[in-house]
């Protein structure tokens, strides 16, 4: 089992990177099913379980930073369990989902603790040190690889059922709480943007954007287009007031 567990761990590490970087989507369960099936010597079962998991994860995609149950670990553990235990694909799904949810909680945690590294990045930028910036990004990749490889290795080597029992000892409120926090988290990024861009004269546009989304529930593209319309009006109004300079007359023709 050791060799198989190591090979599966390597695959999990690679597709753990692909989930966020590369995005060739070899991390989808339909592909993982084939690969884990090859490693464990039962391609047909691998394909069937992988395909079943794929259909379940179809709607679970990372939309705007909201994190669904982790598809990498869900796919790997689900397929491996389905083949090793010779279980029905739907039972494999039942084992895979709690793992996937718990792992996504851990990834939320990782995205949180990686934030301080950005201050090191600021320092590299100040020194115009490009190599430093590159190293920070490679560090992120290495951590993703190791994290996914280890998480995949342990349950397969020690037995998926034992591991599932362990996951169930983590109180539900902690897992739920991390997911709630993940939903609120974009507020921090938006507040930082406001801090950079906001001036008193712009508050009205911010309010308009908010109302369009909150009350009228318009999609972001529609809101951006309305913002663009206001901006164009404002742009030509201002230019009109000042009177076009010779060079600016030329610009007006161009747009």
């Amino acid at each position, binding site marked *: 089992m050791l060799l198989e567990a190591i090979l599966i761990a390597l695959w999990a590490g690679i597709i753990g990177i692909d989930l966020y970087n590369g995005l060739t989507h070899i991390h989808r369960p339909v592909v993982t099913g084939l690969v884990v099936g090859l490693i464990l010597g039962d391609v047909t079962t691998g394909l069937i379980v992988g*395909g079943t998991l794929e259909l379940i994860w179809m709607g679970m995609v990372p939309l705007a930073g909201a994190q669904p149950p982790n598809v990498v670990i869900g796919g790997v553990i689900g397929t491996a369990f389905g083949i090793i235990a010779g279980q029905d694909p739907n039972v494999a799904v039942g084992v895979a989902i709690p793992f996937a949810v718990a792992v996504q909680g851990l990834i939320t945690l990782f995205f949180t603790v990686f*934030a301080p590294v950005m201050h090191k990045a600021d320092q590299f930028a100040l020194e115009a040190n490009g190599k430093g910036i590159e190293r920070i990004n490679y560090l992120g*990749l290495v951590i993703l690889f190791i994290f996914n490889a280890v998480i995949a290795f342990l349950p397969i080597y020690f037995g998926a059922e034992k591991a599932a029992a362990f996951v169930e000892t983590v109180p539900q409120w902690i897992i739920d709480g991390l997911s709630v926090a993940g939903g609120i988290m974009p507020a921090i990024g938006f507040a930082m943007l406001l801090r950079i861009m906001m001036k008193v004269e712009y508050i009205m546009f911010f309010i308009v954007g908010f109302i369009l989304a909150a009350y009228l529930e318009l999609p972001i593209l529609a809101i951006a287009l309305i913002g663009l319309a206001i901006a164009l009006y404002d742009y030509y109004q201002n230019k009109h007031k000042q009177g076009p300079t010779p060079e600016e007359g030329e610009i007006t023709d161009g747009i």
Partner: protein
Amino acid sequence: MASNHYQYEDTTSAQDLPPKQIRSLAWRSLLLQASFNYERMQAAGWLYSILPGLRVIHKNKKDLSKSMKDHLEFFNTHPFLVTFIMGIILAMEQKKEDREAIRGIKVATMGPLGGIGDALFYLTLLPITASIGASLAVEGNILGPFIFLIMFNIIHFGVRFGLMRYGYRTGVKAIGKLKEGTKHVSRAASIVGLTVVGGLIATYVTFKIDYTWKQGESELNVQTDILDQIMPAMLPLIYTLLIYWLLKKGRSPILLIGITVIVGLIGSYFGIM
């Protein structure tokens, strides 16, 4: 901070980037989310993606440092469509555009492209190609995964590389014309940017109270019966403004992220969120 316009030490426009370099930057954009985190999201990966271009454009070390620092500010968009923004921004950098205009365009484009990308790729392309692949796989057909990967990636890489070229060409052409009215352009970009940020807060910050107050026969859901009646997306707005206020007070983003995790845990523990 925002009112001080940065003056480039070297104001001459740089040469056009060769097509080979443009392509290599599109390859680098594959690592956009390598250092993803909740403070800046894709910022360091974004800087990584355009970095070789910036190095060619800004020979002056102080200009390069200023540009790198600006590009470490919060950034988040769809990872396939990011190359379009890269193209435009590199064109602006090359023409030594006003730094606030560069920031404004970046912020104004990342939100809409994020939404379009989600709709196009995660809600349309992925379900279609993956369901074709999965339907073959569940019958034990080994072609399933391959058909999925080929269909998906032809479109994925076509979009990624095509938009890089298109964004850069559009940027170089359009910006030459805009150069003179930089102050107005900055203002226009800020208007679009802030309108979008207002919309993003209401759309993507999920902050809900999940508690129903019961007395006898009557039930009162705090979220839908009270808060939403006062104003939809009220809690996301209040929380974002609270964070904004704390940031202005000089609190560190890390502390605020920590507080947010604790808020989530407390809310979940008491079963009210």
